């Protein structure tokens, strides 16, 4: 018997098709409104070209469904993990922008065009960006401007230019599912942006034109789109692509990006080597399908985990640390390591219509193994989390966990206590172990030699 169809909650805007789940698979149905465009996509050779390059989520066409809806059903490659644009670092957003422009240029060359340019259409296969919306391709209409140009600027160019000033602007994307409003971008770009032809044209003038035409009386709105020859459009997009490729994040000191460099942390060579070997042996023994490293910094332990875990997610709130991690795995499809910007004090919530379109971070990161290395003291002492909440986080998110206890006399904790009163009377090893032992069937406590820190290996059911 066929299992029930679950329509993807974010897939409802395009009348030409939608994505759904059935059993363990992900599928796309192309409805009759999109059938001609899909056929043209196949006939033009664009589908084969993009498939050959690995730019598009892989698919295979299933036999025609015999239900009332009809259309064409594609079975899609299941991606390991879907992150949101607000969780990406600068270079991830830049690579996603370059992929979108590259696809549009390739599409134009084959008589097709992208009908939308949302950053949500880009996902990751390891360190490589892939386009996931097969329904975005439509037939190019002669001399018509790119209808998704405004959306491209809001979703990619405006946030990138703002992030060139300060990468923390990328965090604001969590409240802007349709990208950054151009008037907002214009007001927040530095004054020197008025010396940059591209920023003037694509952002400042664009914002002005949008404002000018947003309240045009109906009679003054042009019925037919203005004409723009294809060659000129392609030249503009190529120029835009070159411009975006030159953008770089501002140089800012990273708090955690170089934490594992020599002399920057509290580990001796012996204790660091012990911790690395221990993490390696636990991940190797459990061989999880998915491992999440909470507080990954620049991903030293995430990379160790990635050797034995099918999929590894490296979450950290430091944009610069994640940037370094992404650049080290960029383009590498074989290492299924996914850097994600995340603040555990305020993880990405469910977004969109009814807050259900895109699930929040915690709902997307249930795993077989969680690494909580030198992070829980930040939650308990830095953010005043009750110990029960920390245990709940670890227990709810993963079946097994490696947790590091950092005592109060450690300089990292002393740094936290420098500017706040010590309210955490339960921050000691016996209470810490007791709290986790109550929630996990197995709790093994291992001291790190040459250090006063401890590692707890937690398992819900002992293997």
């Amino acid at each position: 018997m066929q299992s029930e169809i679950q329509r993807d909650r974010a897939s409802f805007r395009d009348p030409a098709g939608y994505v759904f789940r059935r059993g363990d698979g992900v599928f796309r149905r192309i409805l009759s409104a999109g059938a001609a465009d899909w056929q043209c996509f196949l006939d033009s050779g664009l589908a084969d070209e993009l498939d050959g390059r690995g730019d598009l989520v892989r698919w295979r066409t299933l036999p025609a469904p015999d239900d009332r809806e009809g259309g064409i059903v594609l079975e899609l490659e299941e991606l390991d993990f879907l992150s949101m644009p607000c969780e990406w670092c600068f270079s991830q957003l830049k690579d996603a922008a370059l992929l979108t422009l590259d696809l549009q240029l390739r599409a134009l060359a084959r008589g097709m065009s992208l009908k939308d340019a949302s950053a949500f259409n880009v996902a990751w296969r390891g360190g490589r960006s892939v386009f996931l919306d097969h329904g975005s391709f439509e037939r190019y209409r002669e001399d018509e401007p790119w209808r998704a140009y405004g959306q491209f600027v809001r979703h990619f160019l405006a946030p990138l230019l703002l992030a060139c000033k300060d990468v923390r602007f990328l965090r604001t994307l969590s409240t802007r599912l349709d990208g950054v409003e151009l008037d907002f971008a214009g007001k927040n770009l530095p004054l020197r942006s008025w010396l940059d032809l591209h920023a003037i044209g694509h952002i400042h003038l664009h914002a002005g034109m949008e404002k000018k035409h947003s309240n045009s009386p109906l009679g003054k709105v042009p019925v037919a789109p203005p004409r723009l020859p294809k060659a000129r459009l392609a030249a503009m997009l190529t120029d835009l692509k070159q411009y975006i490729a030159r953008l770089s994040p501002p140089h800012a000191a990273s708090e955690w990006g170089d934490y594992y460099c020599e002399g920057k942390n509290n580990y001796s060579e012996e204790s660091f080597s012990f911790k690395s070997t221990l993490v390696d042996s636990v991940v190797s023994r459990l061989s999880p399908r998915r491992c999440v490293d909470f507080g990954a910094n620049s991903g030293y332990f995430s990379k160790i985990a990635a050797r034995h875990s099918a999929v590894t997610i490296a979450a950290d709130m430091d944009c610069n640390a994640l940037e370094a991690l992404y650049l080290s795995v960029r383009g590498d499809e074989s290492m299924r390591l996914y850097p994600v910007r995340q603040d555990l004090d305020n993880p990405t919530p469910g977004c969109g219509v009814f807050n259900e379109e895109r699930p929040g971070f915690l709902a997307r990161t249930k795993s077989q193994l969680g690494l909580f290395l030198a992070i829980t003291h930040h939650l308990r002492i830095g953010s005043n989390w009750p110990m029960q909440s920390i245990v709940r986080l670890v227990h709810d998110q993963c079946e097994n966990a490696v947790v590091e206890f950092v005592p109060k006399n450690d300089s990292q904790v002393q740094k936290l206590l420098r500017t706040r009163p010590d309210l955490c009377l339960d921050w000691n090893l016996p209470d810490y172990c007791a709290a986790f032992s109550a929630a996990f069937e197995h709790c093994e406590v291992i001291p790190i030699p040459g250090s006063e820190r401890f590692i707890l290996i937690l398992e819900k059911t002992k293997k």
Partner: protein
Amino acid sequence: MIFAYIDSGTGSMLLQVLLAGGFSLLFFFSRIRAYFASKVRTFGGRRNAK
């Protein structure tokens, strides 16, 4: 007729036509500049090789 399901925006479409004119020219000149720059490098390289 509405072709796309996103709001392409009248201002955005009109601006695109204007910008495409300017930036395609810019792109054209940058290609010419790159061409001559590569020729100068090649010529300079040959001269140095002698």
